[in-house]
């Protein structure tokens, strides 16, 4: 229930941003984080950005997910 995924804001329009993770783009509300900008890395929960995360943390999470996805593909 408290699942949250990392993403990067690609563009902002008002209270919403287009955020991308592993090629998937999602529209999220960005009013719960301070001074959001395009390029920021964020944590998304149920359609809201709930925190900014640092680039190193995002890169690490993406790397782990890609490894896991490759492992899954290798079983198919």
């Amino acid at each position: 229930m408290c699942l949250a995924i990392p993403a990067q804001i690609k563009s902002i329009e008002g209270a919403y941003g287009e955020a991308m993770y592993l090629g998937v783009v999602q529209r999220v509300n960005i009013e719960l984080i301070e001074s959001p900008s395009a390029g920021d890395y964020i944590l998304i929960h149920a359609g809201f950005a709930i925190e900014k995360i640092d680039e190193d943390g995002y890169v690490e999470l993406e790397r782990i997910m890609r490894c896991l996805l490759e492992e899954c593909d290798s079983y198919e």
Partner: protein
Amino acid sequence: MNEKLLIAKMVQEINGSVDKDIVIMEVCGTHTQSIAKYGIWDMLSPNIKLVSGPGCPVCVTDKKYIDMAVSLSQKEDVIIATFGDLMKVTGTISCLSEEKSTGKDIRIIYSPIHSIQLAKEFPNKKVVFLAVGFETTAPLIGKIIMMAREQNISNLFFLTSLKLMKPILIEILNDKSNCIDGIICPGHVATIKGSTYFSFITNDYNIKSVVSGFEPLDIISGIYLIMQQCKGNVYGHNRNLYKRCVKEKGNHIANKILEEVFDHKDGNWRGIGMISNSAMIINNEYEDFDAEKNFYFNDLPEIKEDKCICRDILLGKKIPVSCKLFGNQCTPQHPVGACMVSSEGTCGIYYRYRKEG
């Protein structure tokens, strides 16, 4: 160092350092799922007991709440909007999934934002969002309520079952029969409330605690640090191992929203009972959006308790395979208790990953 090698090294040190039974509890359904999914149970010495506490908000949503949601769904001018994992949670007589199959207007939405869209799209209907969650989700609900006020939306309501982690943890830690050595604290609750939200675990109860993320390395690191604290190799205070997402004081915007919109009162946790000051309810300032204050619920059935052992499972005292209903009368397709319904419920996770125990 390669992550797999790092995990292997820490697991080796964890298992090598165990000289008695150690009980480590996590209180987040996402942690339970990660532990099962990544095979962490099987990596560790049998002396290390990983137990799951009441970390799944769907699992602790009581029957009366579901009965109220079912009651609302009977009204022709009502649209129920809900997260998907609430659909099969059983009430006294029915569940939302059954009601939807008979034609009631019940819609699964991904985000509470969509409840505003529904209210605008159907101005002649009353949209009721089933607001279930912990501290991670509550600020989003609060924000939507504030947005609805700003936009003068008068046909949107919220039936809340929002709960706080700290009071239930206090309840568990006050029970000396639990014998817990360490607690892995929920990373995304801490994202909102801050890492210091869980300091009381060590400060008041002298129990080791870490705030952890959800990847295998995060969880193994948390267990490793708890073990080091138990051995006295590392000073034992609450540690934040999820610094990439968790600040010491949390998200101040989200916490302001919680203060603006919600009061606290005693809350009923399914299978456990009433826990003091553990529920977040919509305050008087925003009562126009509170479904409990704006609808009549005079046709609710008499509550009958489940025959399963959800209480003992939610409090980490027993594992699902101990329940005589597990896997036969209670399955994900035909759940009896709420713990079997959610993808983050302990019974559902055991059913998928560890049927034999």
